[in-house]
């Protein structure tokens, strides 16, 4: 009887350890806490060029992550990219004339959307659209412009 008890105890401790390890893996190694869809509102933004922006990319204001990209689609009529983002409803006082730009974290890092506050008294709400947007900077275009400038500089 004593032996059965210790075996059961061993099996129980083992399972607890395993569950603890699973808990550790799911909470400590993955950081992006999913927003509660109930406590977030979604906003659209249209960009001419989104570069390499991906779903789940962060949306940051003043460098603080306040939301996430949930959907990227292409509007075939307007020939624009339509990016749907959700913003935590804690942050419900973002002026509706704020502008969104696609920025790059670090020199070669992943891209994210940066919001710059506007001055309007009307706030963004579920379903509204960010009107002022700035496309991603495409490195090739930048280099192209730079080379053209170099060329014209030589003529003078």
């Amino acid at each position, binding site marked *: 009887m004593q032996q*059965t008890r210790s*075996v*059961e105890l*061993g*099996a129980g*401790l*083992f*399972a607890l*350890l*395993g*569950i*603890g*390890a*699973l808990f*550790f*893996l*799911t909470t*400590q*190694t*993955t*950081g*992006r806490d*999913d927003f509660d869809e109930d406590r977030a509102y979604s906003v659209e933004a249209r960009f001419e060029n989104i570069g390499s922006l991906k779903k*789940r990319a962060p949306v940051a204001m003043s460098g603080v992550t306040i939301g996430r990209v949930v959907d990227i689609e292409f509007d075939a009529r307007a020939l624009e990219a339509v990016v749907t983002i959700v913003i935590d409803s804690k942050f419900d006082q973002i002026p509706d004339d704020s502008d969104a730009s696609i920025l790059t974290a670090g020199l070669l890092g992943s891209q994210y959307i940066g919001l710059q506050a506007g001055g309007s008294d009307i706030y963004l709400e579920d379903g509204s659209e960010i009107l002022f947007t700035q496309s991603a900077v495409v490195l090739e275009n930048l280099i192209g412009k730079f080379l053209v400038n170099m060329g014209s500089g030589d003529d003078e």
Partner: protein
Amino acid sequence: MLRDIYTAFVEFARTFGAFQLFFLRLLRHTPAVLFTRFPLVIKQVYNAGALSLVIIMVSGTFVGGVLGLQGMDILGLFAAEDAVGIFAAFALIKELSPVVTALLFAGRAGTALASEIGLMKATDQLAAMEMMAVNPVKRVVVPRFLGGVIAMPFLVAIFSAVGLLGAHLVAVSLFGVDVGAFWQQMQQTLEMDDVMEGVYKSIVFGIVASSLAVFEGYNAIPTAEGVGRATTRTVVLTAIAVLILDFMITAALI
């Protein structure tokens, strides 16, 4: 020559078919064993899981440590030592933990299962049970199978967790990578799907490794040599099956 190949192929196909029938038999008895003989399963979780903890934890620490060393070396080329956490976490959680744990499990618990059941058969214990109207598959085989199936995901999770601590030990304590950078970059890059990929793999590998071990034991030739051969085949077959399945699951999930 051709004839040998032909015989080998037929023999392989026959064993494969026998394994499938045996597997169905295991599944058929699983619910009954889970509900009526759960103490037997607990004992086997202890045997397959708790007793494998030492080898899993020691291996995990060193595998994680090696990933830390190699990561420092190779990421140092790009001055990206901070990313060693991402490197170790991806390698461990998605690939190394499930595969290495399954191989260690085959060596530690699979061989024990195969030889135990094989020896029971060789010493006519299984036949004696049948004489007493006790179904040996239900009494002996299924609890061992379920014990392994339950233990494996836990073992894999423990391997990953301990491995990450090993990588932390090497990268942060030994090489002075910033502790915040190590964990934060990992957290920013890893997603729940990546962790789940490891969990799915561990479940599949648990089923494969345990069922192969009990199958080999149950179908061992009841002699000393036969039991030895069954033990060897358990390790070989599990290793091959796990590595092939790993490729297939990864291809399907990516």
